[in-house]
């Protein structure tokens, strides 16, 4: 870091309003050259808005932006790219059927671009240089769909570097990576920063912010709470800045004596196909006892969705048997699973877990509408739907202005509470929860975790499928690791080590 040079990025008094929301409220933000600067905050704190302003996607209502001391304004994202600002999005923006090289030159004109014809050799050569320099091995001729998530992210970063970015913004870059892949990414970022390039690292995960950044700026409700040197702080302080109060994450106290307990779920040699008809689950054997939380760790796309869907009847299995409280279920029939006491919190909350345009009240009876008292002889009873909603909204403190509000207007945390309220009020014997806290803020995460523990305490077997290893370590009695559709191992929580689990998640152990 060179103190005499002007900061790479200076944002002064940035304010951005959306209808009904003040997303950024007079934000002052400064990032030095060669610095890895973390932008930390909960969902809705204004991180994305601020980065969208810096990349020209939004224009601020007030405030000014300076790059290397010079005022700039970006009427369009292209202007930001030309000024050397590059963004690596959380959800990659790559054309799946194109090669790595083609994706890098898409929408970008330079010397390698001779009119209509591309010069693949030139591009490929440059990619090889870049990937060697920053230790990001990737084959320029591979097509995007052939690449793993980690590799696709490398392509995204290469794309930004290829376009000559001096300032890189990474939005939640580790959300889909294994711990090892994340560590690799951090090394790459350090190499990039060492060249006096600037990195803005957006995250809500405290540990990785501590691991990778030089300084941290914390946002809360659209305002800057403070900027601190990473070396002078700790996760506890950052969490307090981020949330505005002391945070003690809910943790499981002790495991139940599972030997005496009934088996809530048993999978015997279960196999199933994925979306494309190719095998996605192989020979899965797993047991969940009543009152036990079994965590399924793994990187998304290794069979998690198929596993949840086979148990909940949404997907047919190709072999094996699924036994819920002692009786086999036929499979391929969600209604059968619901009637047998299987509750399900899908990871796709808004599209699958709730019907987004229907009201909160209606979503709360999405499964119970078939039975009295909600309906009799095929007729619904609106009054009972309403009282049910009022009751559940109060018990689960669902923040909705009225039961008639469409579910999509709720925040992620409140939608998840609607889901939990509905699923838990059905008195299930088994609960399958997929990424139940992903995208939730710290407060909502804590509430959801508390509810899961309480539910297990009442004797419900829980299969917790999550990419968040910390969550699984905090809640689960036993941990199974899913990799490439196979269970790579099951360990008791007290015997679990993050490194070992990480290796299993990557298929290395």
């Amino acid at each position: 870091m060179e103190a005499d040079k002007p900061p790479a990025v200076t944002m002064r008094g940035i304010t951005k309003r959306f209808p009904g929301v003040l997303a950024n409220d007079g934000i002052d933000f400064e990032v030095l050259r060669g610095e890895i600067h973390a932008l930390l905050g909960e969902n809705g704190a204004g991180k994305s808005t601020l980065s969208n302003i810096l990349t020209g996607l939004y224009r601020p209502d007030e405030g000014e932006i300076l790059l290397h001391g010079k005022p700039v304004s970006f009427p369009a994202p292209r202007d930001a790219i030309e000024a050397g600002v590059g963004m690596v999005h959380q959800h990659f923006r790559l054309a799946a059927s194109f090669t790595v090289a083609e994706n890098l030159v898409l929408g970008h004109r330079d010397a390698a671009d001779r009119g209509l014809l591309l010069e693949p050799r030139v591009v490929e050569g440059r990619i090889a240089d870049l990937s060697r320099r920053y230790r990001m091995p990737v084959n320029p001729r591979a097509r995007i769909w052939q690449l793993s998530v980690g590799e696709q992210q490398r392509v995204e970063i290469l794309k930004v570097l290829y376009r000559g970015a001096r300032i890189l913004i990474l939005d939640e870059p580790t959300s889909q990576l294994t711990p090892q892949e994340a560590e690799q990414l951090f090394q790459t970022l350090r190499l990039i920063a060492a060249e006096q390039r600037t990195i803005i690292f957006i995250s809500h995960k405290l540990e990785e912010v501590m691991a990778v950044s030089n300084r941290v700026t914390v946002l809360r409700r659209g305002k800057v709470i403070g900027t601190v040197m990473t070396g002078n702080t700790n996760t506890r302080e950052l969490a307090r800045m981020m949330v505005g109060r002391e945070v003690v994450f809910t943790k499981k106290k002790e495991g139940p004596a599972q030997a005496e307990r009934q088996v809530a779920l048993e999978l015997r040699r279960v196999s199933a196909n994925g979306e494309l008809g190719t095998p996605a689950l192989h020979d899965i054997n797993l047991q969940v006892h009543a009152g036990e939380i079994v965590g399924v760790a793994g990187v998304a796309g290794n069979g998690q969705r198929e596993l949840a869907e086979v148990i909940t009847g949404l997907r047919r299995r190709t072999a094996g048997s699924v036994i819920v409280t002692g009786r086999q279920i036929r499979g391929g029939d969600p209604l059968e699973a619901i009637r047998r006491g299987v509750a399900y919190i899908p990871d796709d909350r808004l599209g699958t877990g709730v019907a987004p345009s229907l009201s909160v009240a209606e979503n709360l009876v999405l499964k119970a509408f078939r039975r009295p008292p909600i309906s009799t002889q095929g007729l619904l009873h609106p009054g009972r739907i309403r009282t049910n909603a009022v009751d559940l909204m109060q018990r689960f403190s669902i923040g909705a202005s009225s039961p008639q509000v469409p579910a999509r207007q709720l925040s992620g945390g409140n939608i998840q509470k609607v889901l939990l309220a509905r699923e838990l009020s059905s008195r299930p014997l088994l609960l399958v929860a997929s990424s139940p806290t992903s995208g939730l803020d710290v407060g909502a995460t804590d509430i959801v975790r508390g509810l899961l523990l309480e539910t297990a305490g009442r004797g419900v077997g829980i299969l917790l499928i999550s990419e968040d290893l910390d969550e699984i370590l905090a809640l689960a009695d036993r941990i199974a690791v899913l990799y490439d559709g196979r269970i790579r191992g099951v360990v008791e929580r007290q015997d679990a080590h993050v490194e070992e689990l990480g290796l299993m998640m990557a298929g290395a152990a």
Partner: protein
Amino acid sequence: MIRIERRLTEARWLVVAVPAGSLLAAAFLSGIILALTGHDPIGTWARLLDRGFLAEGAMSATFVTATPLLLTGLAAAAAFRMQTWNIGAEGQLYLGAVGASGIGIALHDQSPVLIIPAMVIAGIVTGAAWAAIPGVLRAYTRTNEIITSLMLNYVAGLLMTYLIFDSHSYWRDLSTFTARVFPQGKYLSDSASWPSLGLAGIAIPFGFLLGMVAAAALWLIYSRTRFGFEARVIGDSRAAAHYAGIRTRRKIVAVMALSGALAGIGGASEIGDFRHVLDPRGLQQASFGYAGIVVAALARLNPFAVVIVAILLGGLSNAGFSLQGATFPAGLVGTLQGLILFCALAGELLVHYRIRFVRRAAPLARAPEKFGAA
């Protein structure tokens, strides 16, 4: 720069103000066109209102046009509510007409008490069966129902034509020499004529009354029954419906059949209320099925609004017919009708969205005045 934003709250007054504003805008825009083409705008508007709704017998005529629009509008609304795009009300109406006229001919010597319900039921059954074809294809083979239901309209039209013009079918009148040379359908007996309700000098056809009952039933189904709840969940998110254990495939077939049954009643009413003969050319020229889609869209799929929109469009279309003449070309009538529909739909947008004129940032500072004035 112009920006369109979703309104966070939809104020109640807008629900009244926007349609009124749309009508005024339509009057203004069509006034310009009328003035440019040398017609008196105010006189034309007065005539339009007069011929459509106010003149002697105008309201009765409006109900005649509104009846099939009401039933096909309900048919479209029933299916669209579940995001099932039945574009086949046209063909389902034809089939309803074929079924109802067939039964009407077969029971020609029976009493109206028997014939009329039989015709209604025949219309329901044939319309529903015709709509069930794209329904089954959609549900079990994932065929796009827009295309199949649309194509079946042509099949239905050709089937009707075949029955009257290209065959010696049961529907064709072969009793006289003239009828054999100039093909036409068998006329139904008087006892197969549907009654109409006289109200303050306005004749309301039996088919329209059926449509009002159907509108109430449709509202009840969608808001108060398990069936309707399931259909709404499917319409909102098929994944959520599957997740909630709702049997989506059966429901798709059922809703398509319900939609087809409503259009089928429309076909039966064309026979029983108005034509009393299977008239392939007349039915195909009218294209009530397609107009029903417009009715449903304007009514925002609300069954009660369908009733009102059907009457308005019925009157508008009748008035249009009586406006056109030597000095008033048919194209101009179409332009006026189109403008009214256009403004109504554009106004609809304004209920949900608002338009803001915002200044662009410094480099393009001169642009907004231009846009703002436009």
